[in-house]
């Protein structure tokens, strides 16, 4: 199976009384809480963590896109991925992803991802989320009633731009382009693997099946909460006559590993409480604009996890407890063997071949993130890496150039300031 290291890039200095004194971590988060000097340090530490994960042997490093969000400092994950492309050599670069309806024209996404695929020698995974309401409809002003139609049209345009061998015109409902001819085009042929992070809507599952894309459920509430969604996905695959290849799916899980369970409980309590307390403090005004959820999704009574979290936080003023975090499996915490056993069970139970791990979360500092990453790489990963590989082929993984044909970045020592 694939073990992938995922970063949200949370701002780690939200005040302790954030929930009481502030409306929301998203959309209208208080500008005065942001200190660019802190962000300078955070970006560099976070990229250290991603680069370290790649060097420690994780199969991929993953970044994603959020806007006006205190727990996601990557309005442009492509910028980070481009920097990572130069500083890593083997790990896949998973951008999960670009919210397609936000780019005008959407060929911008086709171009930037093609650049990253070329720079990295074909290591890109292209994630195409619709994007949350907070990101797309509020922070970016997209009309919720048109968002999905724009998303699908942008997808069609991007795939066409990646695969057509001549200049063409695109006369879409929302995009009219006389000349589409992106330059560069991606190294991977016909195009980088496309993965779709989504909620639990049946339409998304059917579309992934039809297009042969990977479906990812990025659960903030662990495997227990994600189980129903993943079961729904596999039932739909069975109904459509698709095989149970676990590499059709991706799943996100928070993990904290230490030498002993006691040690782990001590180390990860604060960053976990920071994430579930402060980072998920989203004003319910922004979770459900009309038209964002299709009528079929409304009929199936599927609610997004942010909507649920926001509603829950309104009901129970304290929000999520430490007890929930560990006992309901929001974060899998324990010794390397305990974590490996639990993740094996999760991967088998949810039938997921791409496990995305959040090993930095909340206000976890770099030292602890590196410790968590190192222990996982050395003591957990070896116990899991062969799972599924004998029985299934991962047809959705990047196909980079052979190592011998890949360019190696050159490095020069910095000149001394005194010169």
């Amino acid at each position, binding site marked *: 199976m694939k073990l992938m290291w995922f970063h949200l890039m949370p701002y780690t200095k939200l005040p302790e009384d954030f929930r009481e004194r502030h409306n929301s971590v998203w959309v209208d988060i208080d500008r005065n809480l942001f200190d660019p000097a802190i962000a300078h340090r955070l970006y560099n530490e976070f990229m250290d963590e991603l680069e370290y994960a790649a060097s420690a042997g994780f199969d991929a490093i993953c970044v994603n896109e959020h806007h006006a969000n205190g727990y996601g400092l990557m309005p442009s994950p492509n910028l980070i991925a481009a920097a990572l492309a130069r500083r890593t050599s083997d790990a896949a670069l998973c951008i999960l992803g670009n919210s397609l309806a936000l780019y005008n024209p959407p060929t911008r996404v086709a171009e930037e991802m093609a650049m990253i695929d070329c720079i990295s020698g074909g290591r890109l995974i292209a994630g195409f989320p619709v994007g949350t309401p907070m990101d797309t409809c*509020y922070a970016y002003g997209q*009309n*919720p*009633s048109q968002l999905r*139609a724009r998303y699908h049209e942008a997808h069609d345009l991007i795939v066409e731009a990646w695969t057509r061998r001549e200049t063409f015109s695109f006369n879409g409902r929302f995009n009219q382009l006389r000349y589409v001819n992106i330059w560069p085009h991606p190294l991977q042929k016909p195009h980088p693997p496309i993965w779709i992070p989504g909620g639990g809507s049946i339409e998304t599952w059917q579309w992934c099946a039809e297009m042969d894309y990977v479906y990812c459920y990025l659960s903030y509430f662990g495997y227990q909460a994600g189980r129903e969604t993943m079961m729904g996905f596999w039932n739909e695959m069975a109904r459509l006559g698709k095989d149970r290849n676990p590499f059709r799916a991706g799943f996100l899980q928070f993990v904290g590993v230490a030498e002993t369970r006691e040690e782990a409980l001590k180390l990860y309590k604060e960053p976990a409480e920071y994430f579930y307390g402060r980072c998920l403090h989203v004003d319910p005004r922004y979770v459900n*604009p009309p*038209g964002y959820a299709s009528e079929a999704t409304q009929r199936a009574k599927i609610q997004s996890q942010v909507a649920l979290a926001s509603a829950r936080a309104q009901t129970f003023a304290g929000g999520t407890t430490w007890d929930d975090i560990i006992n309901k499996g929001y974060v899998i915490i324990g010794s390397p063997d305990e974590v490996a056993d639990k993740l094996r069970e999760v991967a088998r139970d949810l039938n997921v071949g791409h496990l995305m791990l959040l090993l930095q979360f909340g206000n976890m500092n770099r030292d602890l993130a590196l410790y968590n990453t190192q222990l996982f790489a050395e003591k957990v990963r070896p116990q899991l890496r062969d799972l599924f590989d004998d029985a299934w082929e991962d047809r959705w993984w990047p196909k980079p150039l052979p190592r011998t044909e890949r360019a190696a970045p050159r490095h020069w020592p910095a000149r001394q300031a005194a010169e």
Partner: protein
Amino acid sequence: MSGVRERSVIVNGEPCRIWEKGRGDPVFYLAGIAGLPRWTPFLDRLAETRRVVVPSLPGFPGAGGHDRLDGLIDWIAATLDLLEGVGLAGGDLVGASIGGALAAEVAAVSPALIHRLVLIAPFGLYDRQSPPLDLWAQRPGSLPGLLCADPTTFAAFTAPPEDVAPAEWSIVMTRASEAAARLLWPLGDTRLERRLHRIRCDTTILWGGEDKVLSPRYAERFAAGIAGKTRLLLIPGAGHLADLDAPAATAEAVAEALR
């Protein structure tokens, strides 16, 4: 709903519900945010002296097809199809809120269609000092008190009818909110200001004195921009949906404007 007749007009291939009551000279009415989930006392009062014709705009209760309308020109064309389909030809048109914005657009692009115009707190303009309320970013349960001076009025207006399952009704009302958002997202500004000078008919502008969605300041901007003769009237105590909050006073003001 005694005495209300129902039929439909096809717009873009989708049936749109038409309600009609009363006798005499017709008056056409385009409803506000939420459309018309049920007949109202305001319409009953109008129907005492006129034949009231009430077409549902695409996406609002009784009408589909909002998802085909991608931009303002699509909405204007659909509104023209609807109004011409119910026989508005030189008649009197009343529009409230989002219906007011479209009534004003129609009056601007097709002046011959309308004899006299009544706008009840219409959308369409944007005042930086006093931006329209963001109807689609409100805490659960707070909307009724923002749309009406008396929140129970809006709650009763939009409550599920007896013959519709509550879950399905919630989809109908969400669709209406989506249809309004489709035209007005994100700021409620349709750039109507550029076309107000083309409204040449007599126009009465009514505004709820307690409107929390659009400040009564907007009434003066409409009056200043419209080329025809204008009259302004504040309905004291009424909120944004003035015809729901104060049916008698609003109906009286409309009747007076069209006498």
